[in-house]
């Protein structure tokens, strides 16, 4: 502890990101700050080079008239120059606002208007086109600066400018006013807003969360000390820059700890790039881990019998003792020997193929992770942990400490963080990482921070006997069935979604007599299963309607029911009836948020007929839906959906059935 406080003192003067950047540029000028796979190799930028580039961009922006407090929109994949633009904006005392790069132009209007954006740095022609499309709706927008000049030759719009030209302009500016930027950096204070992150908005319009340098630096420092991160870490930055997780891990922590960010070549090559880099520190939402595991299992199905047997044998060994070995708990010598052998034959190579050989710490968050999934990674020696946090808390509230990993909790309150529960079970947090305000929304700010300065997360949860926090559901989503028993939809849905065959689930039951569910099957997993069974199908809709698939899913649902029956609080909310949706829930259709969270109300509205059919006992229901294709065209699909019953369990009978 004394060591970490020493470091805290040392970092005290480094209380803004620009200062941190300049610090690294002088302390470790030649260490790699960023790598980007381009032209076939990992082009490396040292801290010194990054600082110079950031300077040039900042001065260029200033030359264009960018002032303190202005917002800079940043739209694109994880490219080094976009991260530099974030830092450059901060140098000038501006506020970077990252947008989700895969959103269509119309979806961007709101944020651009709300944040009163005048300057935008975008990745490429695709994003430029979006800006031009909505130019009329965002009249404040004055400058759009693009990173990649490809295809931009014939764009004559005066608001466009290449980042190269901007940097060149900035270098000249810097030469003419050598003290300008340092003075600007000096003006910065820890309490200044360093970034604005828009919450994805499960309900209502997105809100801009204003975070200060101090908040993110505190969150980053806490995480760094908690996991003993050094400047030698390698992290792969592939999650949207607009997401708080990426900003914490790829930007704030890298700036605090001085480690290296690695940007993949393109969205298609993330897996290859992950394997090449072999990060030591890794972050991914549960979905990514789940897809990886599914792929592992599918690829192993094609292996020869001997290899498959070997694999399953050692996976059994790992399941038995792997997690304990990782946690440093006592394990018998026999198991240790077996595990060591398994490590040589299976786990080691497996981690290598997945690009996880070098991982020291991996985190997942954003959604609940299935216990089997979680166990799998830990058992093969990947130190995967969960964390809990929101955009409003810099994604930093609870962390799982090494050696004390519980599958169904999110760990203990992180350093500097205070967590308590109110009388309704809602989680309240306080600490240096709290948001300063919602942008231009004093009402919302007042609503979410109570009089004692606690942020109300809106999540319901409780502490277990060891002081680990357990999350049940969104506090407002927790409802009641007509018989009065608790209905926590997310909790149930997550349990269903832990089955690889299920991609999404939406449950209904608040104010009803029983619980029912929509299911989305996982096309890849179920498709594979169908192929092995020799079933023919022509696509998602066809596969989803097959009776055998209904059987498969019913089996999953009933297992969940058995599981729920064990928990006295939850045994009343077993799923009575379900149907498999004829289309995949899609963010383009508004059914999911961009972070792939279910939009419950929207779905309830769109599929009202189906919900009624579920509750009134019908055997099937016709539905027609409008869908949006990738090119923006719309089409209709209609289908006759079957509705099936699932077995439920009496609370006392549950144990045997499970």
């Amino acid at each position, binding site marked *: 502890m004394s060591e970490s406080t020493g470091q805290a003192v040392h970092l005290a003067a480094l209380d803004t990101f620009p200062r941190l950047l300049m610090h690294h540029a002088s302390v470790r000028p030649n260490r790699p700050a960023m790598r980007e796979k381009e032209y076939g190799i990992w082009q490396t930028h040292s801290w010194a080079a990054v600082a110079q580039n950031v300077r040039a961009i900042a001065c260029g922006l200033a030359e264009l008239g960018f002032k303190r407090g202005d917002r800079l929109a940043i739209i694109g994949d994880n490219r080094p120059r976009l991260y530099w633009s974030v830092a450059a904006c901060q140098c000038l005392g501006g506020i970077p606002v990252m947008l989700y790069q895969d959103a269509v132009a119309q979806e961007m209007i709101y944020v651009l208007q709300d944040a009163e954006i005048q300057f935008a740095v975008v990745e490429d022609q695709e994003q430029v086109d979006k800006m031009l499309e909505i130019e009329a709706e965002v009249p404040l927008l004055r400058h759009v600066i693009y990173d990649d000049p490809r295809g931009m*030759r014939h764009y004559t719009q005066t*608001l466009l400018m290449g980042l190269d030209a901007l940097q060149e302009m900035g270098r000249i500016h810097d030469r003419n006013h050598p003290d300008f930027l340092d003075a600007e950096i000096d003006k910065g204070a820890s309490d200044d807003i360093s970034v604005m992150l828009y919450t994805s908005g499960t309900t209502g319009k997105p809100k801009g969360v204003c975070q200060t340098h101090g908040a993110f630096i505190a969150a980053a420092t806490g995480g760094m000390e908690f996991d003993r991160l050094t400047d030698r870490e390698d992290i792969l930055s592939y999650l949207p820059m607009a997401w708080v997780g990426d900003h914490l891990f790829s930007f704030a922590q890298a700036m605090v700890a001085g480690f290296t960010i690695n940007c993949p070549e393109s969205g298609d090559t993330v897996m290859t790039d992950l394997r090449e880099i072999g990060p030591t520190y890794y972050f991914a939402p549960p979905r990514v881990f789940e897809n990886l595991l599914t792929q592992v299992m599918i690829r192993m199905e094609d292996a020869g019998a001997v290899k498959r047997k070997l694999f399953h044998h050692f996976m059994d060994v790992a399941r038995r003792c792997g997690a304990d070995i990782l946690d440093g708990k006592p394990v018998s010598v026999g198991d240790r020997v077996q595990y060591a052998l398994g490590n040589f034959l299976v786990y080691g190579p497996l981690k290598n193929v997945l690009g996880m050989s070098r991982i020291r710490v991996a985190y997942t968050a954003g959604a609940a992770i299935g216990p089997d999934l979680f166990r799998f990674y830990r058992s093969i020696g990947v130190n995967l942990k969960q964390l809990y946090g929101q955009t409003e808390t810099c994604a930093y509230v609870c962390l799982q400490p090494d050696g004390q990993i519980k599958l169904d909790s999110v760990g203990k309150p992180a350093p500097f963080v205070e967590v308590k529960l109110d009388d309704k079970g809602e989680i309240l947090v306080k600490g240096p990482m709290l948001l300063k305000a919602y942008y231009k929304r004093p009402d919302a700010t007042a609503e979410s921070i109570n009089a004692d300065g606690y942020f109300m997360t809106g999540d319901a949860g409780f502490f277990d006997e060891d002081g680990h926090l357990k999350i049940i559901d969104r506090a407002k989503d927790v409802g009641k069935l007509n018989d009065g028993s608790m209905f926590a939809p997310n909790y149930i849905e997550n349990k269903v979604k832990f089955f690889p065959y299920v991609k999404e689930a939406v449950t209904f039951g608040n104010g009803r007599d029983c619980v029912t569910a929509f299911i989305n099957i996982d096309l890849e997993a179920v498709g594979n299963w169908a192929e092995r069974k020799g079933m023919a199908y022509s696509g998602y809709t066809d596969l989803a309607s097959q009776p055998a698939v209904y059987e498969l899913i019913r089996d999953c649902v009933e297992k969940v029911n058995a599981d729920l029956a064990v928990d006295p609080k939850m045994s009343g909310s077993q799923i009575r009836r379900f149907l498999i949706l004829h289309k995949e829930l899609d963010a383009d259709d508004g059914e999911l948020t961009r972070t792939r969270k279910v939009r419950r109300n929207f779905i309830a509205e769109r599929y009202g007929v189906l919900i009624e059919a579920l509750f009134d006992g019908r055997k099937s229901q016709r539905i027609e839906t409008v869908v949006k294709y990738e090119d923006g065209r719309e089409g209709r699909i209609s289908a006759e959906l079957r509705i099936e019953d699932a077995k439920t369990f009496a609370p006392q009978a549950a144990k045997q059935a499970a």
Partner: protein
Amino acid sequence: MMMNDLIQVAPVAQPPVAERRIGDVILDLQGISLSFGGVKALTNISFDVREHEIRSIIGPNGAGKSSMLNVINGVYHPQEGRIMFRGELRQKMEPHVAAAQGIARTFQNIALFKGMSVLDNIMTGRNLKMKCNLFQHALYWGRARQEEIEHRLKVEEVIDFLEIQGIRKTPVGRLPYGLQKRVELGRALAAEPSLLLLDEPMAGMNVEEKQDMCRFILDVNDQFGTTIVLIEHDMGVVMDISDRVVVLDYGKKIGDGAPDEVKNNPEVIAAYLGTSH
């Protein structure tokens, strides 16, 4: 914000975007006749190609289109006629000499080097520009290695341009047809040609692949100012992207001019209706 409006309408003195300007004639073919042992492939054909233009050659199967390209880059030697390239009269010329003069091409049936990776295939396109000798190669040290790296960078730019980063180390034989076509274009581009001959670059492709290829061809023409002579069957594509079109039928020229002129030429219409096309 009044400022904003002003900027929008005012003709700001920005450097003009380099417009692709069609220049002088760089390739002039006069009275070309070619026969193989009595079979006439081309009869008295004359046409020219101007700098920076996209010049298409169309015609039914067996019209002599590919033979025409083969004459231009020296694979076939016409019995009659003369060829002027960049003001020089060429008599008998070998393909590698044509390559040295800046003429590159792709083939109707993919002519990639099957045993080599995508990277190596495209690297062969740099061959003419590499100066080290065999002994330096055997050492692979100093100058030779430096040269290899310099040209690798050029090749990587081509790979990036054609968006084939994901397959750079794949043996070309394992690639699907559409990608092989793209790699072949890459190999030609790596030579930084001033005249690019494309023999049915879109044959056998699906709509999406055709669109991609079209975009690449236009980009090449636009960004590098490369003059392009193109053989293509897809009339839509030809009419869309060509500056001028030559029509051949049974080895004779039956039409020449802008796409619209050619489209309305009765002889051309007859030739196309007369065949199964």
